[in-house]
């Protein structure tokens, strides 16, 4: 069963039939298992891993990513959860983590430009009550994303025919 997840995490397009062939499992049980995981929200959705730097180079379409550390004064009874939930509601916020260290929340935010992101921080994030400080780190270059190595040659160096 673990193998089904391994395959889907590499290739979200893999059909139950293909996974069944790959694993030797029965196609119906693969389909049922995936459906169960989808119902249980273990599998949340299927998405593409996009090389944003390459997209900008080739198409000119720009997506800016920033890691934003947020300091929050916690409140009795809810801790950081209510503020984190508020921040999570914004669609430009891709991820929100409660982390150990100097700050409390680490957010991943995307926008069309640095200005967009800066504006979001100033207008929306920093103004939330109990947010005491923010530190914005713009991503300058992505080397590896979501397990996918985005740099380095992927050329096949092998001899085309070998014994």
């Amino acid at each position, binding site marked *: 069963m673990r*193998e089904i997840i*391994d*395959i889907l995490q590499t*290739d979200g397009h893999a059909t139950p039939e*293909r996974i069944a*062939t*790959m*694993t*030797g499992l029965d196609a119906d049980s693969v389909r049922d298992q995936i459906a169960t995981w989808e119902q249980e929200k273990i599998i949340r959705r299927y998405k593409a891993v996009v090389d944003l730097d390459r997209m900008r180079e080739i198409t000119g379409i720009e997506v800016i990513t920033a890691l934003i550390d947020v300091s929050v004064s916690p409140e009795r009874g809810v801790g950081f959860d209510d503020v984190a939930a508020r921040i999570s509601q914004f669609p430009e916020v891709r991820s929100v983590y409660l982390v150990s260290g100097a700050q409390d929340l680490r957010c991943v935010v995307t926008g069309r430009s640095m200005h967009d992101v800066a504006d979001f921080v100033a207008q929306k994030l920093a103004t939330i009550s109990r947010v005491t400080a923010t530190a914005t780190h713009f991503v300058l270059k992505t080397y590896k994303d979501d397990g996918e190595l985005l740099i380095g040659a992927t050329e*096949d160096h*092998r*001899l*085309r*025919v*070998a*014994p």
Partner: protein
Amino acid sequence: MRPLNPAVVACPPSGIRRFFDIAASMEDVISLGVGEPDYATPWRIREAGIYALESGITTYTSNAGLLELREAICADLDRRHGLSYQPADECLITAGVSEGLDLALRALLAPGEEVLIPEPCYVAYGPCVSLAGGTPVTVATGGVDGFRLHADRIADAVTPRTKAILLSSPANPTGAVQAREDLAAVVELAVQHDLYLISDEIYERLSYLSPHVCVAALPGALERTILLSGFSKAYAMTGWRVGYLCAPAPISELACRIHQYTMLCASHMSQLAALEALRSGEADANEMIADYDRRRRIFVKGLCEIGLDCPEPGGAFYAFPSISSTGLTSQDFAERLLYDEHVAVVPGDVFGASGEGYVRCCYATALSELEEALVRIERFLGKLPAAPAAH
């Protein structure tokens, strides 16, 4: 000029050379003709090699190789197969199984002695026996029963000059994995006729359907077996050229004597990388092996669906489908497929006469390429005139 060494002159050039030249000159080739993983060596192993270079570890090692590596290899063989080779005098680090095979043959053979080789087999076996002064005697296996070893057929080929039997399971080019009882029967035959066994187990970790059976671990085999293996396939380390030979001390010491004069030692940094592979490469290896298995299932099913009968390969990363339904020889099939559809496969006859009627396809290639190759092969088959029905 005086003639060159007749033993080498008589040695035929490898049959795949021609295909290599054609494929190399073409664009848009999907190559199923390769013989190695499509992965680069896992990073943690490469990093160990880089660290060795950075630290200036660029010297010779002892002839037999780093003791630490030999200890790790013997411990690994003990853990997986219950073998208790002594690192000090029963294990030798070689420049890949290729060198190990040469050492084994030269240590064993007196001029004219025969080595029995089940075929289809790796292209180097016969020539290496000849170059060592011996005589290769092949014993055919067939696709009908999945290239199964039959000890009685091997027994028929035994003569007073027979010295050894050369085994390989899982095998290149067939992907065949031999059953324990079939290997045990061959061991019994070797005991009966007092023959040595050379067992090339380089693909041992790539056994998909059953746990690997190590020939040396079979009853009666240890004292007469030379076990050859290495890191190339399981850890995607083909270019590092590092393998090992394990055998009882008298054989191992003789092999080391040849090795010390001809190779001196295996590459030092490669030995350190191999050590890292044994120490921390297990998870990486398992991940690659699981991935080969998935591609194996997809590709073999695909071959059958487009009408090429393919015995299920239980190991290595090769499928060896029959092309006899096309009425073409394997050379013609491979050449026309390459020219017409730009798919490179290796004609089966280069692996011995009993490989005729088959082609070797390596599925250690991206899934998308495998699927495109299947589309092209199907199109190629569709363009062929219907072959006369087989009797």
